[in-house]
């Protein structure tokens, strides 16, 4: 369908549109007009992605003189492919209506691991070894050698790509990763480098968060992007954590040992070069004297991860004199590693700010701040000079230099925490030194500054006013949309008491109470006997889950549950969990029924959907607060309070509730679906907790469902499931219009209609 939003003609590939999609587009349009940032919350299953894509591409089409580029960030490769598939559908529709004028180039970009088509390289098991494998075949010096000596292997695809030179372009169209690989195979060109090259010219680029947020990656991939771009972060409820992780480094004993090995290997190499090709080292030295940390324009295959610090903070200066010579630099690194070794030996937990840390390095190892700051670039340069291709071997020393550069660059928003053992296992020494970033706004700041509009969107962004404070930006639009439903297909409940009327909670003083454990067990047992197919349970932590499942096993509750449904448990092992999930799905398919025990903040809670019969009920046992004695969290809380005036309690509750909402949101993935959600903790009935749930859950949380005991919940569940099993009319009955056709939209005409919809 085709309709008008103010001055933009929107092309939408379906015949009908949900009212909330329409108002989402209206808000988005306003943000684009204002060239500002937006924060939009809309529940999953309402077609957020297509609304976004449809509006932004139509917006670009309506302004052909100054086309905007769309950078769409997803969390996983799977989501990337899904987004591109929807975009293709939309693109075909636009082509039908507008003809060749609507042509765009859209492509996904991922790591070599996902794009490489050279069988010898892509067979390696992890990302780093694929990268290294690629470098071994494509580095400029390797190729130069191969010209003289045909026995040295090179990558056929890359050679072809280089030969094609400027002719190597992608014709307009929408390319998923799979299409890129197929295209590469077809032409004999390397899809990875082709995609990297085409990103600059594409109208739409879909890639992962890291390509914009992690300065190491963003520095080489997203450097060239124009200012007139719209950046979309989809499923962005954890964006602050991604930002923080991008700037945090942790160093363990293994890292230091590895780094020592790397250093001696490099020393050998230097000696070899001195004997054979002393000129190279001298040339590097001269270059550094001239003040160039980088060698100018490197061939695309040699590019390295860029500097871990943010672009604005990198000094454009000459490398300090005392690390210009390779041997000197190595000895500086050796001293640094030695120093870190010493710090790891500590018996107590230590917490320091970067300034104090740098001062102590200076006094004990004689390395000043400026040297630290240049470590990463200097290492990069050295490795290029030494022509090292197996970069996966040198990850350890990279980590150290990464750490050094960050410590040398930043004085605020970071702290260094040394823990001699894991808090939960105090008898096993496992020292770790962490440089942790507390300020999510640091990593995302360049993104906000560089691009004209940044859209942050997800199904759970409540409370919506906290994100601008955490990320330190001013959205021009921030809104939360509810779902228009033809029937009340979600049924959230707050369960506060067991069947014996005693309160249940995972509050610290109550959680090991046998009464609470028994009540939780009885709750699950009753529920498995009335809910068909799949049930998902979320616990607050692995250790709590282990404990409670153990107790249930001893008291025989688990056995009774097994009479109704099979039980599967998430573990920290990815392979095991995948297998469990697979079997869980099979048990749901064949009618046996199954329960999946999972952990909030775990892998399952974030990425796996339990739609349709795979999840008819989700029970959230307790409030998933973070492990609040973790030093890093405490340091972050302190920083938040001092810098952004966000109270500890507020942040913790916000964080716990967004996790809980994320968990229970797993069951609803479309409007035709239905599911129940039980929040089993007395604390959820408190207003300060409950009000932080997203609006689309709150609007279905009826007063009568706020303070339930097990038997009342059971009764509600029975009624709800019966009601939902009845056939229903998808278009909605007269009073509640949930699908708008083209005529409806025309009738609504101008902007006065938004109010009518809600």
């Amino acid at each position, binding site marked *: 369908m085709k309709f008008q939003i103010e001055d933009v003609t929107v092309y939408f590939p379906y015949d009908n549109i949900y009212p909330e999609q329409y108002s989402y587009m209206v808000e988005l349009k306003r943000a684009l007009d204002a060239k500002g940032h937006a924060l939009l919350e809309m529940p999953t299953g309402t077609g957020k992605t297509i609304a976004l894509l449809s509006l932004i591409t139509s917006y670009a089409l309506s302004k052909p003189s100054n086309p905007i580029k769309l950078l769409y960030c997803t969390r996983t490769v799977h989501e990337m492919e899904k987004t591109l598939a929807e975009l293709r559908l939309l693109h075909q529709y636009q082509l039908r209506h507008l003809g060749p004028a609507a042509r765009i180039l859209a492509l996904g970009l991922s790591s070599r691991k996902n794009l490489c088509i050279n069988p010898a390289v892509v067979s390696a098991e992890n990302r780093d070894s694929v990268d290294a494998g690629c470098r071994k075949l494509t580095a400029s010096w390797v190729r130069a050698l191969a010209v003289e000596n045909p026995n040295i292997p090179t990558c056929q695809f890359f050679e072809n790509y280089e030969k094609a030179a400027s002719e190597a372009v992608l014709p307009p169209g929408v390319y998923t990763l799979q299409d890129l690989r197929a295209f590469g195979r077809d032409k004999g060109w390397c899809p990875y480098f082709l995609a990297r090259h085409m990103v600059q010219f594409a109208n739409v680029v879909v890639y992962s968060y890291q390509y914009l947020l992690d300065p190491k990656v963003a520095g080489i991939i997203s450097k060239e992007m124009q200012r007139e771009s719209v950046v979309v972060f989809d499923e962005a409820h954890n964006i602050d954590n991604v930002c923080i992780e991008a700037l945090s480094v942790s160093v363990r004993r293994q890292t230091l040992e590895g780094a020592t090995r790397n250093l001696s290997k490099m020393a050998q190499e230097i000696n070899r070069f001195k004997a054979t090709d002393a000129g190279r080292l001298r040339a590097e030295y001269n270059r550094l004297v001239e003040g160039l940390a980088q060698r100018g324009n490197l061939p695309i295959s040699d590019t390295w991860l860029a500097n871990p610090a943010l672009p604005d903070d990198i000094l454009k200066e000459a490398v300090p004199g005392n690390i210009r010579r390779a041997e000197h630099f190595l000895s500086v690194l050796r001293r640094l590693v030695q120093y870190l070794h010493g710090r790891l030996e500590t018996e107590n937990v230590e917490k320091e700010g970067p300034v104090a840390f740098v001062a102590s390095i200076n006094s004990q190892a004689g390395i000043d701040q400026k040297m630290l700051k240049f470590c990463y670039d200097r290492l990069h340069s050295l490795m290029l000079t030494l022509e090292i291709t197996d970069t996966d071997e040198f990850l350890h020393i990279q980590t150290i230099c990464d750490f050094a550069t960050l410590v040398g660059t930043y004085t605020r928003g970071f702290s260094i925490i040394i823990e001699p053992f894991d808090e939960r296992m105090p008898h096993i020494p496992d020292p770790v030194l962490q440089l942790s970033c507390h300020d999510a706004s640091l990593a995302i700041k360049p993104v906000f500054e560089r691009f004209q509009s940044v859209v942050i969107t997800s199904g759970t962004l409540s409370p919506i006013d906290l994100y601008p404070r955490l990320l330190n930006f001013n959205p021009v639009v921030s809104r939360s949309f509810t779902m228009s439903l033809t029937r009340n297909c979600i049924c959230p409940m707050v369960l506060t008491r067991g069947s014996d009327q005693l309160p249940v909670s995972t509050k610290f003083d109550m959680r090991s109470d046998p009464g609470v454990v028994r009540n939780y067990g009885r709750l699950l047992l009753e529920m498995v006997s009335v809910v068909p197919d799949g049930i998902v349970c979320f616990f607050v932590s692995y250790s709590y889950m282990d404990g409670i499942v153990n107790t249930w096993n001893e008291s025989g509750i688990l056995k009774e549950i097994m009479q109704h449904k099979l039980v599967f448990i998430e573990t920290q092992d990815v392979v095991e969990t995948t297998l469990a999930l697979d079997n869980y799905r099979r048990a749901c398919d064949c009618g046996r029924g199954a329960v999946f025990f999972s952990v909030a903040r775990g892998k399952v809670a974030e990425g796996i959907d339990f739609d349709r019969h795979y999840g008819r009920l989700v029970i959230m046992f307790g409030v998933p607060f973070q492990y609040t004695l973790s030093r890093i969290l405490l340091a972050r809380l302190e920083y938040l309070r001092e810098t952004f005036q966000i109270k500890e309690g507020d942040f913790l509750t916000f964080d716990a509730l967004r996790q809980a909402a994320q968990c229970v949101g797993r069951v609803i993935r479309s409007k035709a679906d239905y599911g129940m959600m039980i929040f089993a903790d007395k604390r959820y009935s408190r207003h300060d907790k409950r009000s932080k749930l997203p609006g689309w859950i709150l609007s279905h949380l009826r007063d*009568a469902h706020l303070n339930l005991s097990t038997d009342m919940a059971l009764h509600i569940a029975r009624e709800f499931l019966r009601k939902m099993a009845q056939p229903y009319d998808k278009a909605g009955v007269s009073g509640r219009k949930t699908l708008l056709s083209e005529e409806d939209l025309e009738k609504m005409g101008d902007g006065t209609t938004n109010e009518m919809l809600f």
Partner: protein
Amino acid sequence: MNDMEHRKTNDGEGRRLDGEEEEEEEDEDEGNGRGLDAWERAYADERSWESLQEDESGLLRPIDNKTIYHAQYRRRIRSLYSSTTTARIQKGLIRYLYIVVDLSRAASEMDFKPSRMAVVAKHIEAFIREFFDQNPLSQIGLVTIKDGLAQCLTDLGGSPDSHVKALMGKLECSGDSSLQNALDLVHGYLNQIPSYGHREVLILYSALSTCDPGDIMETIQECKKSKIRCSVIGLSAEIFICRHLCQETGGSYSVALDESHFKELLLEHAPPPPAIAEFAIANLIKMGFPQRAAEGVISICSCHKEAKVGGGYTCPRCKARVCELPTECRICGLTLVSSPHLARSYHHLFPIPPFDEVSLSLLNNPHQRSSRACFGCQESLLIPGNKPTLCVACPKCKQHFCLDCDIYIHESLHNCPGCESFRHSKIVSVTEE
């Protein structure tokens, strides 16, 4: 919040802070200005008292839900009709139906009063009688699921009483339920049915899971291959595997809300379903129309193997005596029916089109004074107070009917009195000329 609590415990997890103060137990209910309990508010929101009405003398009038009921009924008729008349649909008149009753542990649940099992049994009895009334040429068999096993209670047969008796004797439940075992068993029986018969299974499923010995998907494919139409009525909630089964085999899946809804759903299975084109090949069946034997004649009954006096029917081919119709002759295997049986099955093929609702203004038109009364029962279509009620008209003969007659004509009579008399008067007028 600076009064976070750090509590020490000894289970190795260390201390934890929950970011909240020691809370009071009764601190919710801030939006509760009306002073009602949560459950009371739920009722207050519905405001059921507002639908009460008073009549002229100030007495409470019983809430009139007749029109609502009728609207629902008309919707059903319309959907039925649209599904049957779009193309000339074949209907299976000779049906072989197995009713599978789930008597697993879940059947003892008390959410239906007195228990699911008792409610199911009660309505099956009504259903069996209704079924034979509408499909006199068809046969039913009963299968139960108990302890994970499927057991055949009665073989296919045409006598309602024997089925009902067999079921009532076996009403106890235990163990798990297995859909696959039941389907396998029924599949084995129905496979032997001649090709003109329509194979159907109706499963009344209480349990929420099925505990199977093998891959149920294969069994479902088997059933699909053998053209067995499987329908399920669930008693508690929607189960994926049942939905899948019904979708694959072309049956219907429904879940009962309560007892009356269950009865309704069950009775929907009484009229024959439209036959799927490739399933049913039209072919001729040999049938016998036995004569009723004279009263007082003593003969040996072929079904009970004993001498009986009077009654009974005689097979036209082998002259054996059978007690009731319809049946298959025990001696020569001929299908024995009576002509009313055939006639009663016939109306399913030519349903009466749904009547149109008539607007009130048309009724007030003085030229149509004659149609102020229902053509069926001759009652006035005006309720006291001279206000017109809703009424309907046959699209062919344009006669008006009241709502009660509408239902009667479609459900029981299967003839439109208007059309019938119209045709008759025409013939008369022709002869007069």
